[in-house]
């Protein structure tokens, strides 16, 4: 019994010291990490809406309501030019060939696609991975949101293209029915 307590105490001391060390290094790094994460999203948003735009996360209640019917939606940002709302950017997921795709799709208030960014993917290098290149992403820019969005497929990557299109069309519905008005 005494032995067990002794072992427990030694292990606890090691664990407490380790927790202390981790707390210190967390304090040293956490601000910078948060800053970088914000910058990452911002970079994708600026790529879609231009350098001068400002962004604000959508009201949380509304986001939760949208996510209730469209679980693929991760985050929604409002894009502003000065004080006027110019569009929405929706971060969402879809199924690709090699796994989940994380996409950022931007819509202008005038009913066109502002742009698309592929944030994360695990598609085949040389085929589906070409989805993250501007050459493919720019095929979406300016397309109307009033009907089903289609683009020319990536050569040899039908499944990836279909996955991106399915995702974009799902959030297009979200934009049309719940955001654009």
């Amino acid at each position: 019994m005494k032995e067990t307590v002794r072992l427990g105490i030694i292990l606890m001391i090691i664990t407490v010291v380790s927790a202390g060390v981790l707390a210190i290094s967390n304090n040293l790094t956490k601000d910078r990490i948060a800053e970088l994460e914000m910058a990452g999203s911002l970079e994708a948003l600026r790529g879609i809406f231009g350098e001068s735009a400002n962004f604000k996360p959508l009201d949380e209640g509304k986001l939760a309501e949208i996510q209730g019917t469209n679980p693929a939606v991760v985050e929604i940002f409002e894009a502003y030019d000065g004080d006027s709302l110019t569009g929405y950017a929706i971060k969402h997921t879809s199924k690709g060939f090699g796994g989940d795709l994380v996409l950022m799709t931007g819509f202008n208030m005038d009913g066109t696609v502002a742009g698309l960014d592929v944030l994360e993917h695990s598609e085949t290098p040389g085929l589906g991975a070409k989805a993250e290149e501007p050459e493919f992403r720019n095929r979406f820019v300016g397309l109307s949101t009033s009907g089903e969005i289609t683009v020319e497929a990536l050569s040899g990557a039908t499944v990836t293209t279909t996955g991106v299109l399915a995702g974009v069309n799902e959030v297009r519905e979200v934009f049309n029915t719940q955001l654009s008005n």
Partner: protein
Amino acid sequence: MKLSKIFRDGIINDNPIFVQLIGMCSTLAVSTNVVNSVAMGAAVIAVLVGSNLVISILRNVIPDKIRIPAFVVVIATFVTIVEMFMKAYAPPIYEALGIFLPLIVVNCIILARAEAFASKNGIVASIVDGIGMGIGYTIALVVLGAIREIFGAGTFLGMQVLPASYQPAGIFIMPPGAFILLGILIGVFNLARRKKSSSKA
């Protein structure tokens, strides 16, 4: 044991990848290019030296019965520290290494050195062992990463080295290419080692 021998053992005679064949999972996964290989190697050296140092200091304090949980706590602490600092100061590399950075916790090399060396040897010897093993691991990773990057992407350290007309062989970047290359490298390394030792005798 002489320190220079401990150091050389880590790199050549007991090279973790080419001779002991431990820590292979992360080796195959992250060695897609030289930068990732160096970064992963640096992370492993940092964790290995840190954990070897602390475990060597505590080797007479930690009771035998709970040594494994104690080692794991020490190792996990160092891995988490490295992870936090990489995330804060080298985010592209942090993203490239992905899940394999936190998985250093379960990398056999670290626990194996703690159990086989640091818990039985002095502080200085343990640090030297950590550096030697870490460099041995890094060398294997960098060689693998360099070959994979040159043939799989036509670049070295991100710079184009093969002519632009070269169409990169994607297989080198993919897991099967890593397996095949590593097998060939292990063969070549051990052939060279054997030749050297037989010429000495």
